């Protein structure tokens, strides 16, 4: 058998360095996997066994039992399955939409130039605020919105032209990421009221829309860097050859940025999959998601470790599977092929 640590190219590490690298990687893998192992082991324990002290190996240290698994998967049955499917639907849908919209916006911010004028922005905020105030003092929502929109258009054409000071792409990008600064806790109740007004409380649609909006800034900022690091010459030569923007994006930009897209997708998926506070406030009976079930295991009687472990484990399985499938795309093989082709 050939030495797995052999040097494979001139730029590769030397075998002793490789062994060193391997050992370090293994060490961190242990750090990552041990708590997961502990979760697994705890899920096979009875409450009494959990309280008695640390038992590490099933059948050797303690007698494992399937009680917790049976409770979550069979007895609760539908009460577990329903939030689970909700999580899958909401997570996948919102991440895919966020990825599409966000990648488009990121590309636009990197390749096109925008010059939003400060005056127009100010007008927009002013009209928005007036609409809001109007609804508070009793005007019906559609009329307030229509009035504000009309006022904005008119004022933009007249006064708006006089303001020439403009912002740039990076300001737009900064505005986008600054949406993430405010902790969700400050906005959940207004969001509750917002969705209540449009009758979308306790619906998956509300969750999807909210997650897309909250995760877009992350997608945009991550993809901005990946797109920016792409050599322009490819796109320019294609443009000179007469390709349209859409063609360029589809045929050149996207294939090369697959590693970035995949990494971003995984991150945004995880954010949506595991989000807790917004789901807590916006849902009650029908649109509950899994993180709520995990947190709910903290009963007045104390956290039910065994059941909680089961829930956490079944929650991470699909994401890990997806990571396994998608990990191969975060490699450089594709890039080399595209460049030389």
């Amino acid at each position, binding site marked *: 058998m050939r030495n797995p640590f052999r040097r494979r190219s001139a730029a590769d590490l030397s075998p002793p360095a490789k062994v060193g690298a391997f050992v370090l990687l293994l060490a961190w*893998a242990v750090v*990552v996997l041990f708590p997961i192992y502990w979760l697994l082991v705890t899920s096979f324990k009875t409450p009494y066994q959990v*309280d008695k*002290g640390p038992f590490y190996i099933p059948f050797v240290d303690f007698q494992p039992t399937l009680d917790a698994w049976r409770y979550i998967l069979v007895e609760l049955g539908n009460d577990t399955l329903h939030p689970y499917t909700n999580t899958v639907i909401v997570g996948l849908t919102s991440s895919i939409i966020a990825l599409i*919209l966000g990648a488009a916006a990121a590309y636009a911010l990197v390749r096109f130039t925008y010059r939003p004028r400060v005056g127009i922005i100010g007008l927009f905020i002013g009209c928005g605020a007036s609409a809001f105030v109007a609804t508070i003092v009793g005007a019906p929502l559609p009329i307030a919105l229509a009035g504000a929109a009309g006022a904005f258009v008119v004022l933009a054409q007249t006064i708006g032209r006089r303001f020439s000071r403009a912002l740039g792409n990076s300001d737009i990008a900064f505005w986008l990421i600054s949406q993430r600064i405010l902790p969700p806790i400050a906005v959940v109740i207004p969001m509750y009221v917002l969705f209540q007004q449009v009758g979308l409380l306790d619906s998956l649609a509300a969750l999807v829309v909210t997650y897309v909006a909250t995760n877009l800034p992350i997608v945009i900022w991550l993809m901005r860097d990946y797109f*920016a690091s792409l050599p322009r010459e490819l796109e320019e030569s294609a443009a000179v050859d007469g390709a349209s923007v859409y063609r360029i994006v589809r045929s050149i930009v996207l294939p090369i940025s697959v590693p970035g897209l995949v990494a971003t997708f995984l991150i945004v998926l995880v954010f949506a999959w595991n989000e*807790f506070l917004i789901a807590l406030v916006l849902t009650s009976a029908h649109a509950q998601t899994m993180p709520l079930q995990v947190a709910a295991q903290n009963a007045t009687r104390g956290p039910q470790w065994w059941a909680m472990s089961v829930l956490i484990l079944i929650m991470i399985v699909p994401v890990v599977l997806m990571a396994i499938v998608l990990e191969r795309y975060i490699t450089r093989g594709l890039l080399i092929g595209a460049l030389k082709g």
Partner: protein
Amino acid sequence: MSPALASSGRSIDLEPDEPIPGRSAAGARATRRAISSLGAWRSDGAARWLFIWPTVLLILVLSIFPLIASVALSVSRLAFSEGSVDLKFVGFNNYQSLLFGTERTHFLGVLKAPNPIGWAIVIVVAALTARAFVRSMRSGRVRAIFLAIRLITGVLLVGFVWLIVGALASDGGRPGALIVTLTFVFAGITLQYALGLGLAMLAVQQVPFRRFFRVVFLIPLTITPVGVGYMFLMMTDTSKGPIEPLWIALGLRNFTWVTDPWLARAAVIIGDTWQWTPFVFVVLLAALESLDQEVREAALVDGASRWQSFVHITMPAILPVTTTIILIRIIEGFKIIDMPNILLGGGPGTATQSMTLQAYIDWNTLNLGRSAAIAYLLLILVSVVATAYVSFVRRRVTEIA
């Protein structure tokens, strides 16, 4: 074109009509046609709006109303009366109680006179700030209004450092939520970036089982934060958790980390790092994998050491991604809540109570006004930090380019 320049987002400044010097007429026409289709690519009408407006619109719609509503909340008091919700305007009461009033010791902390080290820190910072201000004044390039802004900023900065020193480097001082959060953010980011970068560098090497490692390292990120909190609560339990035998073997049977404020904060930072390092790892991994290896291989073959190739080739190439990651982690890190809440409830006392946790406690007891006020103070603080970071980074990146 260097990646740094490309990432600055600036476009080529050519008007469609501008002639390219040194070409023949026909060639110039051809070039002009080419450039106008280039121009078409650069500012194609429909795509220009189609790509950006859905995003902007969605975020605008969903963020305006909650933003205005929560500002309104932060200057009011909530009450429930017969069949309705009362919002009474109380001005800056909520802010006042946090910064100067009953909640000051929880938010800012207990501030006492600094000890010698504290004095030293304050003096050094004040001196540096003064020097920077004087230099910008002398350079003559800066207008008066900006000088005034810089002066105010400088004073505020020194005041802020004074606050921190009064809580941390003094006799009997105790940090409040603000300073605790800052500790979490900066210690956490340092650790997460160092670990994430190190792991990413290791994971791109051709070692056996590297694909296994790359997937495994993602796992902590996939667990819901509440779940990670409870998991760490289990792990760090010194009486029935897995480290109990180790704890007893070290003779620490009667000692616990939950009663010491700094050990408690360390536990939160460790948990937070375990959870978020994969975020840095996966983004850097994708960036490293996208790098062109030929330059690096050429350098190594030419005799450069690995360290040199890392510092001069790899690092500059991933610098844009690095700055983005750190910015994102700063913004996210300031919102830390689940780890301190689940591990310790913000304890011992208020030693691990982050700002968002304090806002949560208020929110949970329906003190929505004060909760929103804390959130807005957080917003102001992080906006300042983020702006400072972005401008600092932008200057540096263009310097390197």
